[in-house]
């Protein structure tokens, strides 16, 4: 094109979405060159899809890197320890190549204290560290970050597993550090020094997000809130204390001063008597996470009926159908609902939460887009009603607690119900199935779910045909995770090229044979076909034996070598046999 580089660069700076930037880079060689020099943000959805060296070679001036490691099913203990997802090779290369790096965001990766220390010492302008569902580090690593990152803006440890050696790490923030805007330490259990916390908050005028951990006592919350009336997102600590009028009064007053608060979370160990203290902020709330609050329906209802601007609600099933009904009447702006089980391992219902609650919300909340719902019964008619009420759903994750539970009214499979969901909700991007399902539901999914990007399947289907429908029909599919389904070789081998259009496929406790894995790997050199088998001794197994777990992903980096002995990448070149 005739424009000088600087002009193009300036234009490109307005293009922020990763997919758009990728498209831009494909227009022509000069655009590719200009684009790669001015790309500032990188997202790598699978850390094994590309090597750090490749990333650095192509994009030399990056300021923000986001990586994801383990497969999603790692959240549910299906991925064995030692699987991989190490941050180490990335930080080694980036420390050398990206001195101006400002942001690191990791999900499901293994991060060590040494890695954290290296981050804290390598990047002079380091600002944002988000460790989501990560593990492998301790509070010592956090101390290094606190001590050395002079311009730290954000430290978010959401749901990571941290070896909690002491709360002392927080005291390592120097007095000169005043840049903090966001701190999420909710996953930690140790008590931090309260005075250090108080002083840190007091000298952080831009602090917008503060998520405390359970150990911060309720009696002291008002002290903190008074020093941060500008907070937008607050996560409380344990929400109970001895019933004392002065504590209650202080808390109520402190909350009433928080005019900017839009989101609340925390609420462990709730003592209902203290809940009215938050009422003054309810009318402004757009986000409320009560999913750790073991309070009964009347108490939950009292809160949510005061939140007309609520957009996102996470709650335990203690809310019951009555509470969800109240939600549907009060919160007309609701976009996202997540209902978690209070007693997931018990067969009979401990609460009166059924499919009716979800139906009510689907009727009353016209903007509802995203649902995560755990329940004990479902029917095709309810699912169909929900689908027709809410064709604007983009995420529908239903977990009926009992595997293979049929429609509780008709005892039929739930194929028709889920079929209605995919047929009516044409923008559906994410779907999780449960209940009794035959191959028919996959026929519907393959036919209708053209925008579906992520699909989770468990205890479903009858035969390979089910998997074939999905692989051949779902045009936008990127991530597919399957457990305990009778899917085998045929569907996989009939859809090999599809697998290269996806990020990854996980299959565990299915019927895929070792031989099929080998053949797949030989046909598709740009896939890593990894077999996980903890019973060991893969070499001596016959080709017709079923593999325990299978993880297939596209990659330009070739097979990885950081695996434990029970994970094997299938040979891509059949002549190399050990």
């Amino acid at each position, binding site marked *: 094109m005739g424009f000088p580089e600087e002009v193009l660069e300036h234009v490109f700076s307005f293009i922020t979405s990763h997919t758009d930037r990728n498209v831009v880079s494909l227009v022509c060689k000069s655009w590719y060159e200009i684009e790669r020099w001015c790309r500032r943000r990188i997202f790598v959805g699978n850390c094994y899809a590309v090597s750090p060296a490749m990333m650095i070679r192509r994009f030399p001036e990056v300021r923000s890197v986001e990586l994801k490691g383990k497969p999603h*099913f790692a*959240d*549910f*203990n*299906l991925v064995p320890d030692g699987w991989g997802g190490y941050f180490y090779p990335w930080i080694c290369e980036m420390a050398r190549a990206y001195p101006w790096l400002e942001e690191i965001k990791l999900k499901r990766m293994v991060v060590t204290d040494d890695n954290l220390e290296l981050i804290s010492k390598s990047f002079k302008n380091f600002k944002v560290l988000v460790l989501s569902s990560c593990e492998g580090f301790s509070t010592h690593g956090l101390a290094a970050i606190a001590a050395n990152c002079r311009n730290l803006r954000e430290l978010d440890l959401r*749901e990571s*597993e941290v070896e*909690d050696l002491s709360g002392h790490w927080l005291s390592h923030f120097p007095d000169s550090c005043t840049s903090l805007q966001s701190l999420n330490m909710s*996953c930690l*259990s140790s008590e931090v020094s309260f005075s250090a916390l108080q002083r840190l908050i007091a000298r952080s005028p831009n602090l917008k997000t503060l998520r405390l951990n*359970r*150990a911060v006592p309720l009696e002291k919350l008002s002290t903190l809130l008074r020093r941060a009336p500008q907070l937008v997102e607050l996560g409380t600590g344990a929400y109970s204390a*001895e019933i004392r009028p002065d504590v209650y009064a202080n808390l109520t007053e402190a909350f009433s001063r928080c005019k900017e608060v839009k989101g609340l979370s925390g609420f*462990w*160990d709730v003592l209902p008597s203290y809940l009215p203290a938050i009422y003054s902020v309810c009318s402004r709330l757009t986000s409320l996470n009560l*999913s*750790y609050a*073991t*309070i*009964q329906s009347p108490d939950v209802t009292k809160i949510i009926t005061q939140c007309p601007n609520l957009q996102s609600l996470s709650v335990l099933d203690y809310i019951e159908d009555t509470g969800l009904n109240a939600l549907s009447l009060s919160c007309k702006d609701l976009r996202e609902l997540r209902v*978690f*089980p*209070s*007693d*997931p*391992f*018990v*067969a*009979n*219902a*401990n609460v009166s939460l059924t499919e009716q609650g979800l139906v009510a919300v689907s009727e009353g909340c016209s903007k509802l887009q995203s649902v995560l719902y*755990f329940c004990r019964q479902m029917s095709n008619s309810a699912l169909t009603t929900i689908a027709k009420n809410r064709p604007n759903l983009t995420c529908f994750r239903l*977990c009926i*607690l*009992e*595997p*293979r539970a*049929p429609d509780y009214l008709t*005892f039929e499979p739930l194929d028709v119900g889920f079929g209605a969901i995919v047929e009516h909700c044409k923008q559906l991007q994410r779907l*999780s199935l449960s209940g*009794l399902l035959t191959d028919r539901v996959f026929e519907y999914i393959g036919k209708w779910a053209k925008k579906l990007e992520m699909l*989770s399947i*468990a*205890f479903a289907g*009858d035969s390979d045909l089910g998997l074939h429908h999905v692989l051949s029909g779902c045009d936008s599919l990127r991530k597919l995770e399957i*457990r*305990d389904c*009778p899917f085998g070789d045929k569907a996989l081998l009939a859809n090999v090229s599809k697998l290269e259009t996806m990020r990854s496929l996980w299959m565990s*406790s299915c019927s895929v044979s070792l031989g099929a894995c080998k053949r797949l790997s030989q046909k598709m050199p740009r896939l890593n076909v990894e077999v996980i088998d903890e019973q060991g001794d893969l070499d001596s197994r016959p080709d017709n034996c079923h593999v325990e777990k299978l993880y297939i992903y596209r990659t330009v980096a070739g097979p990885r070598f950081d695996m434990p002995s029970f994970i094997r990448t299938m040979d891509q070149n059949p002549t190399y046999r050990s």
Partner: protein
Amino acid sequence: MELYLGLALSSSSSSASSCSSQFDLNCHESTIPVHRSKKRKHDDDYDHVPQTLPLLVWNNNFCCNKNQLNEEHQDHDNDGDDDDEVESNSISVRHRNIGGVIGWPPVKLCRRKVCHRKIGNGGGGDDGDGGGSKSMYVKVHMEGIGIARKVDLNMHQSYQTLVLTLANMFGKCYGDVKLTYQDKEGDWLLAGDVPWGSFIKTIQRLKLLKK
């Protein structure tokens, strides 16, 4: 609403299926064993027993038994050597990780810790599967009913859930009962006045009274 509880017992048959025999709570002895049913009840059972709650535990049996309502698909590879866990007197059949389905339901570790938080524990140090190994069973009597039951107090963190569970246990409505307990000193007190933590430390036995 009267809840009639049907407890499916396993019977001896070649394919490890179970027959279902219902029995009335009140006609049985004080220890009412709850057997894990290895197969779901048939459709006909739902016809003549209204409001029966099928008591089911998901375990490897569910993985193996495909489409359990359909006789033709009965799976014979069932692991018949699963130990029959007899949960004495607890209405909720507790899932244990051993013999259970790994990773199901799909609830993250941090949430499982909250659901099965042991009393007095800060929430950390759990074994991750959520099936707490500590139980705290106390005897519960219902006014007017001869048979005592037992309840595991460690499965509760509040009076409300406890009363709800106990009411269900005896087929009573939550609003029709009030809960009393006997403390360490032998005194009978109305439950709910002291914080849960103190209650747990002092309680010896429970009694449900009709309002």
